[in-house]
């Protein structure tokens, strides 16, 4: 016997319990999966806080990802409370045992004066550009918006900074700061793919800006055409969410480390030598810092830079991309960073090795004693920690430096 819409609606009401907006509002967060079954265009106008969006058109295909446990409570809502009743019947048919529909839907919710969230709405151009990110649940439009609002600072627009800058820009990281005082040299082009033959002799930060904006004009490039030193480091890193260390001197790496720990900004570290690279992420106080890993720098003959020792061009390329992966995870708050782990890469063997790192309880920069001393306005001096930490910053500048000749 044919059934009318009224018949179907009555059957659905008989089968599916309904809950009021007040009841839904009083549910403790996390105790039920709340699913908005409206169309995307309605979702974009606003939705319940913490709700997930699964359009009724896709409910059979997508509900298992949103609500994997068939015995856990699920509450569906739509605009007025009808579509959610029918969607709930589908879930009941699929074996969900605790499905309810919110009476009156989102209109009743708003009418009751309850809080709602308006999701990030990307422009049509952005939806196209970042469509492969939007398809990934871990990124999605909220993650993409987060990237667009993020600020990443690259120390060095060279071998490591080149792939990092390009992929951060492609990913839509909204602000990319570049610290580099150098000009493009023809010998850079074997690996520094931000720059071009036509731009030899130009300032690297300017050459990088041209490359970044050619790839993604949305990115705001901040040019810091200066050498990172103790006197300017706090100003240079201020306001950035993550820093990618791609410098080629120990002096800069220690200065950056100390300031970033004090400012609480994660630093993604990489360094290269011929066919080898090292990579880790220093998340202040969650894992070790650079000084925990290397309390003192080696003498120059044990640590020549690329201009002295040479480097296979792809090695900084690979390490720079791994740095970018770390930076994106930090910005998105997903996955597990390399905090507390050092990855070694050997290009000749195509071999990755992982070593465990620990916070040094006597670290002059990130130990509890160092934090307390800094709070008290008396940063630990080298002598008080019994170490021989180089370049420890004092109020008057550096306690020690590497000579220019020793720099790679």
């Amino acid at each position, binding site marked *: 016997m044919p059934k009318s819409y009224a018949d179907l609606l009555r059957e659905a009401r008989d089968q599916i319990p309904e809950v009021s907006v007040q009841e839904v509002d009083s549910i403790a967060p996390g105790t039920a999966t709340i699913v908005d079954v409206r169309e995307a265009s309605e979702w974009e106008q606003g939705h319940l806080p913490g709700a997930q969006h699964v359009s009724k058109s896709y409910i059979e295909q997508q509900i298992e990802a949103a609500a994997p446990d068939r015995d856990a409570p699920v509450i569906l809502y739509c605009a007025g409370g009808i579509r959610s009743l029918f969607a709930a019947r589908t879930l009941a048919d699929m074996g969900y045992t605790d499905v309810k529909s919110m009476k009156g839907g989102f209109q009743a919710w708003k009418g009751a004066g309850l809080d709602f969230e308006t999701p990030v709405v990307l422009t049509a151009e952005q939806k196209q550009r970042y469509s492969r990110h939007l398809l990934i649940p871990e990124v999605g439009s909220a993650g993409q918006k987060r990237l667009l609002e993020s600020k990443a600072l690259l120390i060095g627009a060279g071998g490591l900074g080149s792939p990092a800058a390009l992929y951060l820009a492609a990913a839509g990281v909204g602000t990319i700061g570049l610290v580099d005082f150098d000009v493009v040299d023809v010998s850079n082009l074997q690996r520094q793919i931000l720059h071009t033959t036509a731009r030899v002799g130009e300032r690297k930060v300017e050459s990088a800006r041209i490359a970044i904006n050619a790839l993604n004009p949305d990115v705001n490039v901040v040019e810091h055409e200066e050498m990172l030193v103790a006197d300017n480091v706090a100003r240079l890193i201020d306001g950035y969410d993550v820093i990618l260390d791609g410098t080629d001197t120990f002096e800069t790496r220690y200065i950056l480390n100390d300031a970033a720990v004090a400012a609480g900004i994660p630093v993604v570290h990489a360094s290269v030598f011929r066919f080898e690279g090292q990579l880790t992420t220093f998340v202040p106080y969650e894992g070790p810092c650079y000084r925990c890993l290397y309390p003192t720098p080696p003498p120059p003959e044990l640590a020549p830079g690329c201009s002295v020792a040479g480097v296979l061009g792809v090695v900084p390329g690979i390490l720079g991309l791994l740095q970018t992966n770390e930076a994106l995870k930090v910005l998105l708050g997903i996955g597990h960073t390399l905090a507390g782990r050092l990855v070694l890469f050997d290009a000749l063997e195509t071999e990755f090795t992982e070593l465990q790192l620990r916070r040094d309880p006597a670290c002059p920069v990130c130990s509890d004693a160092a934090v307390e001393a800094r709070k008290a306005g008396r940063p630990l001096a080298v002598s008080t920690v019994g*170490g021989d930490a180089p370049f420890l910053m004092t109020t008057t500048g550096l306690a020690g430096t590497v000579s220019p000749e020793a720099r790679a």
Partner: protein
Amino acid sequence: MSIVFIPSVLRGSVGGAKSLEVDGDSIRSVVDGLVERHPSLGGQLLTGDGDLNRFVNVYVNGQDVRYLAGLDTPVAPTDEVRLLPAMAGG
């Protein structure tokens, strides 16, 4: 015999070998064995007092010996020992 992995920056001191098999039941005896065979490593790995230089990290099976027992960290015959100096290139 433990396997000691030599970083490329130190390979010149050991005739280019990427790894060496060295006898010894502690980091101290492994390092001493290395230095005995390749004396020029001595100045790079050890201080004048015979301690490990702080710019060379030593790992046993992925763990930093500074957080184990330093030079007295025991080494089993199948353990992997890795010497790791910092690198600066970018």
